[in-house]
């Protein structure tokens, strides 16, 4: 089973959590999928924007597309990430919010 199925599960859990938690739907209510690299993603991305940008832009970006997005944040927007940080963030985004693999032909 592909780990990318986690995206659908994550989306389902956001909807469920959202309909239960009625009071606190500011950006602190955004829950990203647990996984290696999540603390780095939270620290790096939320410097400038809420983490719903990640959810909103999923699951249609492959690893190259996420890499392009993260590099833009670093090179153009000035996010202070090391090469290692970038790899961690891209790896996390691809694993949990990456493009669904095309269905295998029978």
């Amino acid at each position, binding site marked *: 089973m592909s780990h990318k199925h986690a995206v659908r599960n994550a989306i389902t859990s956001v*909807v469920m959590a*959202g309909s239960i938690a009625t009071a606190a*739907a500011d950006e602190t209510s955004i829950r990203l999928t647990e996984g290696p690299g999540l603390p780095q993603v939270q620290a790096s991305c939320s410097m*400038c924007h*809420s983490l*719903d*940008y990640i959810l*909103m832009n999923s699951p249609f970006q492959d690893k190259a597309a996420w890499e392009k997005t993260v590099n833009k944040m670093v090179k*153009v927007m000035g996010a202070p990430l090391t090469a290692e940080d970038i790899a961690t963030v891209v790896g996390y985004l691809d694993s949990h919010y990456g493009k669904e693999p095309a269905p295998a032909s029978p």
Partner: protein
Amino acid sequence: MDRRKFILGSTSAMTGGLLLPGILGAASGEALPAGAVASGILDALPGKQPLIKRSFRPPNYETPVSLYRHAFTPNDAFYVRWHTGVPEITRAAWRLRISGPGVKSEREFTYDTIRRKFKMTEVAAVNQCSGNRRGLFSPHVPGVQWGYGAMGNAVWRGVRLKDVLEDAGLAAGALEVIGNGADAPTLTGPDFVKSLPMWKALDPDTLIAFEMNGEPLPKWNGAPARLVAPGWTATYWIKAVADLTVTDKPFDGFWMKTAYRVPKGMFGASGFESQDTEQNSPITAIKVNSLVVDPAPGAVLERGRRIDVLGIAWDGGSGIRDVEVSLDGGSTWRNARLERDLGRYSWRQWRYAIKPGQAGAMTLMARAHARDGSTQTDTLVHNPAGYHHNVVQKVDYHVA
């Protein structure tokens, strides 16, 4: 202030994410990314009705299509779009500076002096985000995943940019007017700054506006003053405008040179030659478009009962010539009834009476024609940034 929170998927008539595109007014075959559907909750910013939240920070909120029933979009229903944090500038603290090599003398105005010195005027105009409907692109492209609601129609009131520039005096060689708002980037990224060609800056309908729909601009929509560039996408309508620089060479900031571009020739001439390159052009005028407002897609219609379908149509300023409706998949088209003309930059409401005769599925298509001869496209003109989605809508109903 408590902010009221709603989850679209939890309201009584809906049972989950799958029905959301219908609520948002999506036509058949078009859908937002699953993640955008899940995170697009209804949320009320202070002073606003509940709008569809695309991102909390910076605040990007779109208007639900059901709120487009009015000729003019109420200020508290008007969409919100920021690249950075929202500046809080009081009228007392606000200043507008005019400078640069393209003016003979510099000027600085306060909220009172600019309003006293220049004649106030009004224009009715659609304000539409360049990326409106980006979320419906197939394949999807990254960016704010807007549905149909990154736009609104309002009466904008203020002074003519032309009068203010002529007061400073234009020097020979004046080429572009660069507008900068009071917002600032979080880190070291490029400040959100945009330029207009002189002809557009000197158009008598281009304003420095203080009011929309008879009330001061909400801070979410650019208080105390914003540029209004009727017919052009909202990227040029600089909010909380603070500085105008008249330049004698093309402005090369990131948001002009790199962002907000379309492939050269894909959508016709830009009208902004000093910003064209061999490869691409700045996005400029809004393309002709229409939207079905009521009944909402997915609605159940009563068989044999006559109802009026309500829609809107708009373009980049030539005005709407007619709107056609098809109930047979595009084989035959009949004209809708146009409501009052509120000005060439305003949207035009239209109505079309239907009386469903047969139970089952029914699809309505609507297509607007502008006075300049342009019409909507049958298929998406895909482009990397997700601009100019004006595909003819196909709205599915169920007759019972």
